[in-house]
């Protein structure tokens, strides 16, 4: 009976297509309520922060106002002011935007460099692989923190872009190694050889065949990396090696807490930024974990 029905259905209706990648991810997100809430939170925060930052005037916010130093939250300043009389709420918005921008920029740039480097090294192998991996090793042994400190001292004024470039220069190696190891595995598969027998060039095989087959790994690591990069930027700014106070970021807001007085009595300066960093990183992680499960059929919940 059942087979009969199936046959009839096959003839009458269009045969069901297997779920696409996006619908699998969506199913996974719907199953995992925490990840769904996290994703909504991320979208809302991102849209809100980038939207409001368009209206806000950064120069206005970072201008020192001696008449309103250390004001607690109130009607004029929703989240109070810092020791320069600057509006914390405005700094929080612009700071979140800057931190997010850096996180996304660094993730994308390290991703591109890592993918190109790792794919080329892994796909060609041999001496090319050897040379490229030694270059990677060289970058890995460089003391990241020290060089960033030197950079900050040398470069007179840096923007979101230049700061991202500095961070990118020292953060692409992990991805390159990861993608190389995957590419090494992937290039041995018959479909790569089969594609060669069709007359495809190496670069075409690399970027249109091997790359899509390791894309799930790349998407997951890049998502989880985004959280790391935001945390890293905040850490550097907290230590004073990130942005100056004229360019607020979540890290610069945190760094006010280095003052014991602020830490103890003026919670409104550093608590919102800390909570926001925590929530952002947790939310990105949750989404990343859901993506990770979606890419592996054995772990899927949906």
């Amino acid at each position, binding site marked *: 009976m059942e087979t009969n029905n199936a046959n009839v259905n096959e003839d009458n209706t269009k*045969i069901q*297509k*297997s779920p696409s990648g996006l619908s699998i991810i969506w199913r996974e997100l719907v199953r995992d309520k925490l990840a769904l809430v996290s994703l909504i939170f991320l979208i809302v925060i991102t849209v809100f922060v980038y939207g409001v930052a368009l209206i806000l005037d950064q120069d206005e916010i970072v201008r020192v106002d001696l008449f309103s130093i250390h004001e607690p939250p109130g009607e004029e300043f929703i989240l109070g002011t810092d020791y320069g009389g600057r509006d914390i709420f405005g700094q929080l918005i612009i700071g979140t935007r800057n931190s997010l921008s850096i996180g996304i920029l660094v993730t994308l740039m390290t991703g591109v460099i890592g993918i190109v480097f790792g794919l080329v090294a892994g796909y060609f*192998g*041999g001496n090319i692989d050897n040379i490229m991996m030694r270059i990677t090793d060289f970058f890995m042994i460089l003391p990241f923190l020290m060089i960033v400190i030197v950079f900050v001292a040398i470069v007179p004024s840096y923007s979101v872009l230049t700061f991202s470039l500095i961070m990118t220069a020292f953060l692409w190696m992990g991805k390159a190694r990861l993608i190389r190891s995957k590419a090494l595995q992937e290039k041995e*598969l*018959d*479909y790569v*050889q*089969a*594609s*060669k*027998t*069709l*007359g*495809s*060039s*190496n670069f075409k095989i690399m970027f249109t*065949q091997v790359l*899509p*087959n390791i*894309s799930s790994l790349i998407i997951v690591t890049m998502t989880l990396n985004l959280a790391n990069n935001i945390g890293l930027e905040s850490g550097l700014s907290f230590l004073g090696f990130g942005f100056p106070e004229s360019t607020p970021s979540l890290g610069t807001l945190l760094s006010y807490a280095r003052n014991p007085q602020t830490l103890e009595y003026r919670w409104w300066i550093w608590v919102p930024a800390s909570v926001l960093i925590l929530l952002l990183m947790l939310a990105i992680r949750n989404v990343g974990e859901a993506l990770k499960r979606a890419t592996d059929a054995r772990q899927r919940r949906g």
Partner: protein
Amino acid sequence: MSEKLLEVKNLKTSFRIKDDYYAAVDDVSLSVNKNEVLAIVGESGCGKSALAFSIMGLHNRAKIEGNIMFKNQDIANISPAKLNKLRGNNMGMIFQDPLTALNPLMEIGDQIGEALLLHNKDLSKEKRKDKVIQLLTKVGIPRPEHVYEQFPHELSGGMRQRVVIATAIANEPELLIADEPTTALDVTIQSQILDLIKELKDDMDAGIIMITHDLGVVAEMADRVAVMYAGQIVEVSDVYTLFESPLHPYTRSLFNSVPNTAEAQSKLHVIQGIVPSLQKLPREGCRFSARIPWVEESAHEEHPELHEVSPGHFVRCTCYKHFNFPDSSKEEQQHGIS
């Protein structure tokens, strides 16, 4: 005699193992004509696939010496760009395992279309799709319009092998190399696939190199047979001569190892030992001598060469003149094979 399509002369493919090069394909010469199936048989590890990969130029880091003349053009030392023009267009390859030979993330239509696109940039999208569906129909896939949009994991093994074949023949190549095309398939599908390859051969007037270790496939498909052992060809002949009067001890052992329904055998013949690994391969003397120890040393040639025993029938080494299968009971006593 019809036109020579591919002529391999003294091909030597060596792989590097710990700073030394070891030849996996050693001094192989063979030729394929148009509309002819040349079968290459041999045990696992005797260099069949290495030979096929050498012809297609798929070895990444191997030293390839000798000539591979494809339509009077030496493709052994050709630039990658020129080789890419030939591959897929004039030469196609069917792979052993259809499970891995297809890109899991590409729709079937795109995979076959890629072969068309690479060699014919002017073909419009609609025409390409028509051509792909035509190809799918040709290789006997039901509902090609539907399969066009499916992914490899949605198809069965036999269907996938058909897709692999469709990809290989997309541009109607003159030379088709089939590397054990039926090993991964079950018996009923095997015969269908073999019939399909035969049909395509007649359609396209193509030369086919069929690599297999299945003597049944050889009998079914081949016009000529080359028997390979340890990187060398030990016997070449047309298929009828070979099946009627195999000469080389290795060929005879192979035939003897196949179950025979006509005669009742209590035990199957087993060729002693295994194919030696690349590094341990004896480079001098008869390479098969180690596996037929009861044949006297003097029976082998010092430098075994292919001798023409009858027109078109070549045998390596002289040991075939002195070779006899040992008495099976004695063999068991001596070597403990049961």
